[in-house]
């Protein structure tokens, strides 16, 4: 029973099978059109905006490692079964940073001030987060984020952003205009220590009964708020914010209350540019105590990401499209900077931010 079909046909059939499988693989990988927005394209946009600075995070490049603990008061256990909310203390490492991709940018400018944290609960599960000092974010989607970066990137010919492109972007994005207006109008705090930091995105807390609560959270400082004059910001020393918090921590721990805000039905959960009404229920679930600052060279914050999707069981992402993008972009940025030789961080030579501190 010899095969009757000519050998070429049979070889062609084999090639066809392999070609089909390869084509399917290429499609899954996004190598074929249509274009798909991936984390690398977003990191490329960040690099185009602020330059490539080897060894540094592509966003929030300037920062300082911190250490401390989270003292849960047990109330959070009503909303989430995560072990972090049991009435106990959990170790914390984290990072203060300022927005943008330039590792030596002066602190005296209107930019995000951020607090990133990794809380480790008793069973080893971690809760990571990267919070900003604004209750709203300038963009709602990863595509808008990239468009905003591109529209405000320096023009290669002039070295400055093209006002026409930025204007065209802003004309189409009222949420970004609202953010910029908020940033202009809201008093700016004088220190990391008296700053409130917000979760930006919405998350789900899942309680013992399996019920999901849509929540946002913030860290509210116990240090009294004090505003800084925005008009004279530019005249401040380059590292004044970081120097201030390093000096404070050399003397006393700094404390924030973790306030969880619960959404009512109908509140936006998938759009970080929208605030919730002020009368939403707020629950104080514990205190963050930061007692140590370390330059990135000496601390443990440099080689990890504060990926907001690293969550313990009992905390889950919402449907906010920014969350997977933040997770993917942080990983991509980590892979890039970890493979590079970088310069020392802006605070590397600060004598008070060394491991040798008591």
């Amino acid at each position, binding site marked *: *029973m010899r*095969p009757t079909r000519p*050998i070429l046909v*049979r*070889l062609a*059939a*084999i090639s066809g*099978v*392999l070609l089909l*499988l*390869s084509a*399917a*693989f290429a499609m*899954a*990988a*996004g190598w074929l059109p249509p274009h*798909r*927005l*991936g*984390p690398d394209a*977003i990191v490329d946009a960040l690099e185009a905006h602020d330059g490539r600075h080897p060894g540094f995070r592509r966003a929030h490049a300037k920062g300082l490692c911190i250490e401390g603990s989270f003292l849960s008061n047990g109330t959070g256990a009503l909303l989430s079964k995560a072990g972090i909310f049991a009435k106990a203390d959990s170790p914390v490492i984290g990072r203060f940073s300022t927005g943008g991709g330039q590792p030596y940018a002066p602190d005296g400018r209107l930019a995000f001030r951020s607090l990133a944290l990794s809380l480790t609960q008793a*069973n*080893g*599960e*971690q809760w990571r987060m990267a919070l900003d000092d604004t209750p709203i974010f300038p963009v709602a989607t*990863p595509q808008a984020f990239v468009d905003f970066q591109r529209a405000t990137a320096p023009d290669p010919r002039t070295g400055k952003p093209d006002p026409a492109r930025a204007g065209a972007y802003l004309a189409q994005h009222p949420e970004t205009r609202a953010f910029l207006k908020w940033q202009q109008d809201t008093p700016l705090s004088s220190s990391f220590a008296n700053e409130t930091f917000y979760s930006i995105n919405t998350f789900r807390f899942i309680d013992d009964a399996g019920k999901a609560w849509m929540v946002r959270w913030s860290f509210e400082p116990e240090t009294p708020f004090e505003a800084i004059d925005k008009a004279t910001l530019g005249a401040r020393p380059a590292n004044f914010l970081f120097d201030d918090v390093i000096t404070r921590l050399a003397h006393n721990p700094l404390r924030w209350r973790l306030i969880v805000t619960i959404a009512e039905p109908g509140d936006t959960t998938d759009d970080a540019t929208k605030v919730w009404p002020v009368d939403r229920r707020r629950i104080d679930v514990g205190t963050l105590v930061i007692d140590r600052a370390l330059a990135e060279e000496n601390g*443990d914050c*440099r*080689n*990890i*990401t504060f*990926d907001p*999707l*690293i969550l313990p*069981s009992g905390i889950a*992402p919402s*449907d906010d*499209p920014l*969350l*997977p*993008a933040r*997770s*993917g*972009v942080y*990983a991509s940025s*980590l*892979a*890039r*900077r*970890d*493979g590079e030789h970088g310069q020392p961080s802006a605070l590397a030579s600060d004598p008070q931010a060394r491991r040798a501190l008591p």
Partner: protein
Amino acid sequence: MNPSASRFPLALRLLHWLMAICILVMLFIGVGMVSTVSELQTWLIDLHKPLGILILCLAAIRACIRLTRPAPALPADLPTVQRVAAHLSHLLLYALMFALPLVGWAMLSAGGYPVQLFGTLQLPPIAPIDGPLFAFLRQAHTLLAMVLFATILLHLGAALFHAWVRHDGVWRTMTLGRSQRRPPISSIWISRSAGSS
């Protein structure tokens, strides 16, 4: 050891096809999840990690069976080049079945990522948190995945060549079908040559 086995043991054949599906799905998930920032990404990553550990476990079981049970011989008339290619590619496939999950696990460890499966089950780190190591392992994970996909293409192409062009019974050594419509050439040859025993 019985060198005249005409097919791989049933357990190994079952594992082969189960793992073939798992590994292909895994490769597609892998390239897909790093290509997008859509909500699909989170879902794919949550699938990628437990599936990788499953493949690692299945690979361990499979290697034990492969090393302890007889495997059918290749046809005697197979040219030496193809014979060597077959052995090397099988060795490479086994190596990658172990290497990819282990490199992935070590990569997450080096990047300080918890290796969390199904929400609560957490695997211990198998590498220290180390920046350059993370960058290296991430590149290695990607590269090895591409090598694995290429080797699978080669493997599939060769298998189909045996099935559709050579008709030498090699394809049937790994199929799950019970009936044997015609004795594979290899087993005729082997039973003839081994007849003296």
